[in-house]
């Protein structure tokens, strides 16, 4: 397989079962370069499970994932990042007793080549490499306005800032595909506004393709090019946001079926 003719990411017939619980049932979708894709769906629909399959934390029972024309399921978990996929987690998985700067520098891990002896001797090439990788990291700190948190331990930062540090760490990897798991969770209205702008800037200025799992419909509908709706591990709709908003099946999954005995759930 080569890169020609393939979308950036193609997921085909992805299925995964945990014991008796079906997490994913034949999910297929593709992500084109330079787009923002949102995966939405009720709790337990299998959204994060897709991310975990792409990160190779879970091994799907069936189906395949093709990234840039290569079979992603042949990668070992740590190789996914080096191939150009970065992710964040639903609950920030940060290195709490490292500073913001160190967290972001860890994002450069794949790009740094220094060996054990060079590092221990702090050889000129080790120093040069370290300095070279400082620059993109400092640019990201400025981009996400994290200057005041730069030298603080992440454990001491407020929740919203920690989510940004995690986003910054993923960006430091210079990925081609960025997976964001509920980026706006725990953020206030103002932070959400900033986040929307940033995700759009990440696409427009950095040229990074983004896929996000998100619950906040204002975020999803405003920034997505494509929305994928999952329910009980199955795709129930794919399309541009305006189409999804009026899709009968989506409304049923979110609001309950109209013919159900309890009647439609009233969400104000």
């Amino acid at each position, binding site marked *: 397989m080569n890169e020609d003719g393939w979308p950036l990411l193609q997921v085909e017939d992805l299925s995964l079962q945990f014991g008796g619980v079906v997490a994913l049932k034949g999910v297929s979708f593709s992500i084109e370069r330079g787009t923002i894709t949102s995966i939405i769906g009720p709790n337990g629909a299998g959204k994060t499970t897709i991310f975990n399959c792409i990160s190779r934390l879970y091994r799907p029972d069936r189906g395949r994932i093709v990234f840039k024309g290569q079979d992603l399921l042949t990668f070992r978990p740590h190789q996914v990042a080096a191939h150009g996929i970065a992710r964040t987690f639903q609950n920030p998985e940060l290195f709490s*007793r490292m500073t913001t700067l160190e967290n972001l520098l860890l994002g450069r891990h794949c790009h740094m080549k220094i060996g054990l002896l060079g590092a221990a001797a702090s050889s000129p090439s080790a*120093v040069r490499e370290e300095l070279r990788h400082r620059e993109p990291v400092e640019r990201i700190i400025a981009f996400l306005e994290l200057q005041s948190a730069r030298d603080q331990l992440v454990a001491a930062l407020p929740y919203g800032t920690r989510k940004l540090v995690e986003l910054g760490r993923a960006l430091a*990897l210079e990925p081609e595909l960025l997976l964001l798991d509920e980026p706006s969770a725990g953020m206030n209205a103002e932070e959400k506004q900033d986040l929307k702008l940033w995700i759009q800037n990440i696409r427009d200025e950095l040229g990074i393709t983004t896929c996000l799992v998100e619950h906040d419909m204002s975020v999803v509908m405003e920034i997505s090019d494509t929305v994928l709706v999952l329910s009980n591990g199955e795709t129930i709709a794919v399309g541009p946001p305006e189409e999804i908003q009026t899709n009968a099946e989506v409304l049923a999954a979110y609001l309950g079926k109209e013919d159900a005995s309890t009647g439609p759930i009233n969400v104000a």
Partner: protein
Amino acid sequence: MTLHTEYYNELRLLKSTPAKVWFGLLLLVLLVIPTALEGYLLNLLTLAAIHVIIAIGLNLLTGYTGQISLGHAGFIGIGAYTSALLMLKLHLPFALALLAAGGVAGVFGFLVGLPALRLTGPYLAIATLGFGIAVGQILVKWESLSGGSLGIHPPKPSIGPLVFTSETHFYFLSISTMLLMTIGAANLIKSKIGRAFVAIRESEVAALAMGVNLTLYKTLAFAVSAFYAGIGGSLMGHLIGYISPDAFNLLVSIYFLSMIVIGGLASILGSILGSILLTALPYFLSGIKNLPMVIYGASLILIIIFEPYGLTGHWMKLRLYWRMWPF
């Protein structure tokens, strides 16, 4: 000041002029000590330097990478025996035997690191404990190689025409090795590799998602840590001039673990402070036979409860206090 020089300054080990002055003074003191001290006290200082090497190695593994080892005595023993046997049986020069001691211990560290890929916390503690005990038992049983429980006498080392016979010679050998290995560890911690170690301690799943090869870096942490223990073991054997399997028992592993917990986990300064304190303690308490052990135990408990960052944490607080004074 351009950004570039600013980043460069952050990379240096000694950042400010006072730090350089203090380090210079320290070197000067270390240089003149042998003229002021001799005999037992000088040997105690030499031993402290060797302990610093081992403690820093253990801290790289336990403090920085978050992997406990209750088998470090095994690596120290492997280092001590490797170096002694290479010199006794193959007549290798000391410098080579010393490096080989670190190397062989490092290989064993790598092997012990393999199960660590699947084991965490108490399970890893038990696995490494088993390794430490096994090394002692094998050294007792493999009499043709190790001389059994009677032990062997590592020869006096020499490098080229320089024969380390006096206490002063040993002092300089140990201090310079200690300084080199301390600087190496300090550089390592600030590098990509050190960051990967800490990342593994803080969140394995995030480290993995950022492309850190857990297999490689966990086994590397074990290997580097064991290398430090092996070098320390070799020097210790040649200094004392006699080694036997029971010099590398479980208590020795716990002793080094106490050093880094009392001194401060994930801190080079902590490893140094802890080693000096625990090496000096028996000297000042030599009147009462079991008191040092009681004090290790008690201070371990007190430190974990009241000062989780060890002596280093206390030092940081004091420094902050004086800087902020009188507020």
